[in-house]
């Protein structure tokens, strides 16, 4: 790299190093009681019942969200891959529409739909399917609905990109050799889409670990995830050490998962080729 090429990269490097990476190191320092090297906040994370409970809730919600999101996205992306151009355009519009509306506004809309006297409950009672309103928000259900809704478009785009690389002739070959639809799907298409699925799973899970807005609004203070707990620790109880320690653990977890999945994909591709 020549000096003039580096001069072009320098501004953004300075910008991010001074205003992003340095602050990040600062919160690592806070969590370790810099200049000491004290792991007491991390030990507290492990010992505290409250943190354990919230970490478990977070894990359960993220796992459920990931499974549902990837399942729904697979169906959509498969349909998009083989749809006629007209249908494809229409479906893409529906998929991309939420991407352009903010997480916050989508939560507002879900609150309107799902609360006790919300539209879903009123519609169900009007039809006579239920007598008393269902509890759809301020619990895990609400949070999962909101998170799945947020993440499906991302997962669809990821899966669709990988499905596009699958050679259609392989499926035609399977069918012309007498394979049933279900065989073609499970023995040809599914294995070929494995790396795409792994990417989508990683993306969804890593994104969902850090969710803040959706759990805070749709969980209504009763279903609390780690991000919201961090915000409460820092802003309300001023426990910076605890809050930053949770952040660092989350960040390390996210980076680790991404690296792990990249390595797995590389190995899988190597094994196939």
């Amino acid at each position: 790299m020549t000096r003039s090429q580096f001069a072009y990269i320098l501004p953004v490097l300075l910008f991010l190093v001074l205003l992003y990476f340095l602050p990040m190191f600062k919160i690592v320092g806070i969590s370790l009681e810099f200049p000491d090297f004290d792991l007491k906040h991390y030990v507290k994370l492990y010992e505290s019942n409250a943190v354990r409970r919230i970490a478990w809730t977070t894990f359960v919600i993220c796992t459920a969200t990931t499974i549902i999101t990837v399942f729904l996205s697979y169906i959509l992306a498969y349909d998009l891959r083989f749809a006629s151009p007209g249908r494809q355009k229409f479906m893409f519009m529906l998929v991309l529409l939420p991407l352009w509306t903010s997480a916050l506004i989508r939560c507002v809309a879900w609150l309107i739909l799902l609360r006790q006297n919300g539209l879903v409950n009123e519609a169900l009672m009007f039809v006579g399917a239920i007598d008393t309103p269902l509890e759809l928000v301020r619990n895990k259900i609400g949070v999962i609905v909101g998170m799945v809704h947020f993440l499906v478009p991302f997962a669809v785009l990821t899966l669709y990109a990988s499905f596009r690389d699958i050679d259609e002739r392989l499926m035609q070959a399977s069918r012309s050799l007498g394979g049933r639809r279900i065989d073609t799907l499970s023995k040809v298409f599914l294995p070929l889409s494995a790396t795409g699925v792994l990417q989508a799973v990683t993306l969804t899970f890593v994104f969902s670990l850090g969710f803040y807005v959706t759990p805070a609004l749709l969980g209504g203070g009763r279903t609390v995830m780690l991000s919201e707990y961090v915000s409460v620790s820092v802003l309300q109880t001023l426990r910076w050490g605890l809050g930053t320690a949770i952040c660092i653990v989350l960040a390390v977890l996210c980076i680790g998962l991404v690296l792990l999945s990249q390595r797995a994909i590389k190995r899988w591709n190597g094994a196939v080729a």
Partner: protein
Amino acid sequence: MNPDFTSYFWKTVSLVIAFFLAAPAIVIIPVSLTPSNYIEMPGVSDFSLRHYHELLKDNRWTTAAWDSLRIALLSSFLATSLSLVASIGIWRSQSKWSAAIQSALLVPLIIPQIATALALYSIWVQTGLYDTLIGVAIAHAILAVPFCIVTISSSLSNLDPRLDKAALSLGASHFRSMWDVLIPSLKPGIAAAALFSFVLSWDEVVVTLFVASRSVSTLPREIWNGVRENLDPSVAAVSTLLILISICIALVAWAKDLSVRAKSGERQ
């Protein structure tokens, strides 16, 4: 089972999922048109714009809109210009180092936003950026830089490096070649990056909650407060306006075939 039946079944399922995705945006619009003081579906004939009138009269919302607009423009300009110059530098050098730098620049994508929010909060308070327009704009630009770099880099990868080399060998400076040769060919990518970072800032709430307090209020922040206090139709009306603005931007991008590019650039 009849193969036609199964294929119709799955196609219907996927259509239902697609509508599930669009549902919130579709529902919130009629709700904002209710004449009542509470959130409910208006009857077929009694749509009313009263909540929109109230928005325009309410200082809280108009100030927030003006702040949001200035912050989004500033942050979009900052993120796009920094990323443009950096992407060109990375593209020109093609070395091991530049690949490493590029992946380092993408780290903010993976780190949970709450960590970013805490980190910025702790420094912003010390440097006097806390609770200022510029401070919020810089925070949003930090979030936008990785997306802009991905978008502009993918546009650069379609460009013939010999164009740049020809300009340089004919005596143009690095800057001149960037300005007169590269930037004109990168317009769609740059526009996508600028639009995307604008929308990101316009919608951002998590980091904003941490780096601003009284003197800067953005629309998402006011919506956040509104939802937590009591959900009234004015929140639905602001949300509808924000959705419509985002959709307009998306349509402009769509017309220029940028939308998919910007959004698929979102992941590495």
